[in-house]
Each structure stands twice: as structure tokens, then as C-alpha cells.
């Protein structure tokens, strides 16, 4: 897996209201792949803020685990905008993810 891959719909990520989402996974375990897939789908379909999703494999960059205080994996950490939020799991429960990120579901088009 790439060390960091960003999915950004549209404009550059440097915008102030752009959400930075980092998903930490442990290699290519089934759970990790599930988490990536679930989150990608959720971001694409269910949220209506600008975001930038980075997937980070801690096997490649283990030193990040301490900095980010990651214990459980997979872990999604939203740093910007404040406040910091973290959700652990394979992201199968979309409602929980949204609640955890303080987001409302995008109204169905």
C-alpha cells in the first residue's frame, strides 16, 4: 500500500475548511483493507465537506504510532479542523463514524 494516498474531490487541500483525515492501518490485513474501502465509500457518498484522506501504513512508518498515540488499529484520526477526533475499527458502522466526526449525513441527492 502507498505510504500516503490522498483522495481529494476538487480544490487543493490547503484550504482552511478542508478536513484532514488520516487512516492508520497495519499493513494489508483484511481488516485494514476493509477499513480503507469502507472509509473511502463513506467519504465519497455520505459526507459533504471538503476532505483529504491519507492512508498510512504503520508497518512502514512505525515511529508515527507513538506521535499519534495510536494503540488500536485501524484508527481514523481527524486533526483538522479542531477538535481532534479519533475512531477505531474497520469503519463498518457508518453511523458511528459520522457521529464520531461530528458530521451529518449528506442529504440524499
Amino acid at each position, binding site marked *: 500500500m502507498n505510504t500516503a494516498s490522498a483522495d481529494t474531490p476538487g480544490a487543493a487541500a490547503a484550504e482552511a475548511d478542508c478536513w484532514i483525515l488520516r487512516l*492508520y492501518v*497495519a499493513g494489508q490485513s483484511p*481488516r485494514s483493507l*476493509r*477499513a480503507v474501502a*469502507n472509509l473511502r465509500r463513506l467519504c465519497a457518498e455520505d459526507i459533504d465537506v471538503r476532505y483529504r484522506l491519507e492512508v498510512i501504513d*504503520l*508497518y512502514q512508518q*512505525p*515511529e508515527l*504510532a*507513538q506521535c499519534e*498515540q*495510536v*494503540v*488500536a*488499529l*485501524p*484508527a481514523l484520526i481527524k486533526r483538522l479542523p479542531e477538535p*481532534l*477526533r*479519533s*475512531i*477505531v*475499527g*474497520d*469503519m*463498518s*458502522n*457508518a453511523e*458511528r*463514524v459520522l*457521529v*464520531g466526526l461530528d458530521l451529518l449525513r449528506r442529504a440524499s441527492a
Partner: protein
Amino acid sequence: MLGYHLSPTARGKAVRAQGGNLTEKLHLWATSSIKARAIDLIKSPTGIQGLDELTGGGLPTGRPTLVCGGAGCGKTLLSLEFLVHGALRYGEPGVFMAFEETAADLVQNVASLGFDLDDLVARRLLVIDHVRVERSEVKASGDYDLEGLFIRLDHAIRSIGVKRVVLDTLETLFAGLPNPAIPRAELRRLFGWLKARGVTDLIIGERGDDPGALTRQGLEEYVSDCVIVLDHRVVDMASSRRLRVVKYRGSTHGSNEYPFLIDECGISVLPIASVGLQHPASGERVSSGLDSLDAMLGGLGYFRGSSVLAAGTAGTGKTSLAATFAAAACQRGERVLVFAFEESPSQIVRNMRSIGIDLAPAIAQGLLRIHAARPTLLGLEMHLSVMLKEVAGFDPQVVVDPLSSFMKVGNENDVVQRMLLRLVDALKVKGITSFFTNLTQGGGAQEHTDVAISSLIDTWLLVRDMELGGERNRGLYVLKSRGMAHSNQIREFSLSAQGIELRDAYVGPAGVLTGSARLSQEAPERSGQLRRDQEILRKQAELASKREGIEAQVVAIRAEFAALEAAALAVIGQAEVSEARLSLDRDEMAHSRRAEPA
């Protein structure tokens, strides 16, 4: 019969080869396995004084050890010492996974003990990883595991080649994560993972309210190779810390509770050094500081390495005896450690100066050290631990201690006796001569009040008050002294500016007389003695004059006899001459008458 280190399959082959029926084969199998193991377990020393002795070398290498106890028992400190000593003394870097305290807090907490954790981190001997798991911050969506923890541990272990790991305390994972089943499953994986990496781990568990369980979350299920329990209780307003090795698979260990201290150097556990009574007995003698007292002790003094007790009621001079002994030892160049529980060091020095013992130069030279503390400050065991620690640090040849301080603090007699036994034992093993003083209750039967400790004492001096004729004087006698002939006489014992003086007690018709009674009895004695002396002189003079008189008489009689003798001899001479003349005349006449032819 079948060799030593056999694997099960090899054993199986050997058994089958031997043949025989099923019973024989089973017997063969059993006995071969019994013969297999004579290999000692490899252990990692903790570097904590006393704990390595207790565990027979340290914690099991490559295996997990559980350290549990209530809050504030010293678990974190113990684990930190394990890492620090491991890094500095045994060349084993370590990682501390801190779930409760931040790295900064840890560094600060142990800085006062002389452990510079920042320095160790900088030198790549230690990694501190603070793992924060905050329930309120974590939301769960779906299924997860604790691989993050493994990754962090692995990273830390690889970065500096860690050999020792501390996890303080995993129970936060249970509290911090929403689903407790996941940490439980992961724990099993964790210990297997750690074992595979060959690191020695120390798992810290906090004791909960359930008295049956060692830890709140039941960590003891997973960690059962070695379990150490720390305890901190308050008895009679004095705090007491204890440690117990509950379990140690594959090794013998001291399984009693042992008291330990936490002081400015860290933790020190003080187990009994000698389980049996195997300490060597020295034949060397040390002077008590008083020639007259040495004379009462077979002429030479106490045995080196023996225990001496000076007992007596208040104000009988026990401390003075102790000080005399200490001063004499310092003069010989030996180190003396004095424990003072009633007076401050300067007070002792001043008081002893008044009887002519100057301890100040010995203190200045570093030969004499006075350790002063209030006995009620510590529990009995802490008391003992402090004393043993001081002895270990200063390494004296002589120790002086007021025993009464033990009695004051301890409640039951047998507890006190056990403490004393450990103290005396520890001192004897090192060959240290110990001098105890004990304040006894007055009113006779002084030999009976301390029956609990009499068996521990080799030489027992008793200082008694003797009241007679309106005054009290002190008498000293040797109640017992093992291994030597000792005097059984009570001697009068007085203190003056010249020091202690022992005089022979005067035994008069009414018993022992001391002080003025003695003086008043001695005076007529002296005059009587004088009279007798004069009588003797007179008689001798008389005899001399008699002898002279008789000798004069003898001389006179002799002279008389001599005169008589001379006269008699003269008469005899004359008679002989005339006889001869007569004979001649007769011959001439015969010749002239021509009676014979011419």
C-alpha cells in the same frame, strides 16, 4: 540411564528400543524425564538490593513477571529500577511503556533518587513510550485490534536493542477501550509475542478491592511465571512496606514476606542473610574499654562478633559503658556505628565528656558515626531495615544500640524477639560485635524481664542499684558470658570526671556495702589493721632482744669453759713431765748401782 537433555521424540525412540511391556515402558519414560533436567533457570538481575538474593539471581529471563499491589506500593519504582540498573549495570537497554504517567512525570518522579532518565534516553539505553488511552476520546466503529501497541513496542525494541520491557499498567487498556473482550484476547497474543522476542518483561498490575484477586483485571491469569506482590500497610500509625515472591516457576525462592524500604537511593529489600546458624565464631577478644571490667571477663574482654547487653534501671550508667566500649574501639582504629534513639548526637558527646570520654575526635576522623532518630517514627521492620542499611553502608566493626527502643515500638514480645534475632544474626554473620543497652523496670527480678532475648545475648552485664543507709550506689556484675570464665563478684561501679571506676565491693556482715557505708566500715578496719601491724613489730623487737640476751650468756659460758680447759691441760702437762723425770731417775740409779753390766 538414558542421558540428559532428551526431546520427547528421542525419549520415545529410546523407550521403544528398550522393549518390555507397557508398565516397563512407562517407568522408563518417567525416570528418563526425571534425570533430564539439571539446568538452572537463567535469570536477569534486578539490581535492587536484597531482591536478587530473594529470587536467587533475579527475574526469569525472557519470561513475564507480574508485580502487583495497591496504590502507592512502589511498583513503578521497582520497575524503573529494574530498567535503570539493567541499562547501567548489566548492559541491557529497556523500554518503559507507560499507560498512566507521562514521560515527563516519570523523569521528575525518580530524579530525586538519582536516576537521570533523560540521560539514559539520550544515551539510547532507555525508551519511554507514554500510551494514552482515553475512553472519552475513543469511538469504535466495527472491529479492531491492538496492533498499534505491538507496532510501538516492536519499534522501541528494535530501535535500541531492548532486552527488558515494563508495561505499567495494562489495566488502563481495559478501562480505556470500549470493548474489554478485545484487550483480553490481545493480551494473550502480547505475552506470546514478547516471549518470542526473548525480552524479560515486567508487567505491573494494580490491586483492586477484591481480596481474592491479585489484580483488578485478572492479569495473573496470563502471567504466571513469576509473581511478586507488594504491600503497604499502616500498623500502629507507622507505615510498613512488605514484599513477597508469591510464585516463581522453575526456581526456589524466599517465600516469606520481607520488609523493604524506599529511601533516597531507591528500594532496598532486606532478607535474612543466613537462614541457618552457620556464622563462624571468632576467638579474638576485644577490650571493653575498662581494664577492671576486662579482668572480670576472663582477663581479656568480649569475644569479637559476640552480642553484649548492659541492662539496668534508669541512670545506672549503661550508656557510659557503651561509650567506653565505643571509645576503646575507635582508639584501636575500628569503625563504630552508634544508634541513638533518645538523645541527639551532640547531647551524647557532651554527656560523655563529663565522664572523661571525648568522642569528638573519633567522629571527626570518621571512625564513629551516630545515627539518631526517634523510634516511634518508624515501624519495627522499617527500624530494622534502616539499621541494616546503615550497617551495610558504613561497615563498622562495632554497633551500639539501645534495645529499649525496640521494646517501645514493638507491641508483642515475639515480634520484637524476631526482629532482634534478625538483627543479631545479621551482625554476627559479618563478625560485628554488638553492644546493646536495655532499660529495665526496677524492683528486683531484673534477670527475668528480658527472658525473651536472653538467648540471643552472649555476654550480659547487669548494673544494679544498691540502696543502703540512705544512699544509692551502683554495682556491676557479669550475669553471664558465654565461652569464658567470668567473675561472679559484684563490683562497685562509679562515674567520675576521670571515667568509670570499678572497685571491689566490700562484703560486710550485712551484705555488700558500698559508698559511705563502705567508707564507714573501712575506717575501723584500717585502724584495726594498723594496731595489728604495730603489735607484730613489738613482738619482733622483743624476740630480737631475747635472742641477744641468750647469745651473750652463751658467750660467757664458753669463755669459762675455755679457761677450765686451759688449766686442766696445764696440770696434765706437768704430770706427764714429772712422770718422765721419775722414769729417767730410776734408770740412772739402776745404772749407778751396777745392776746391769756396763
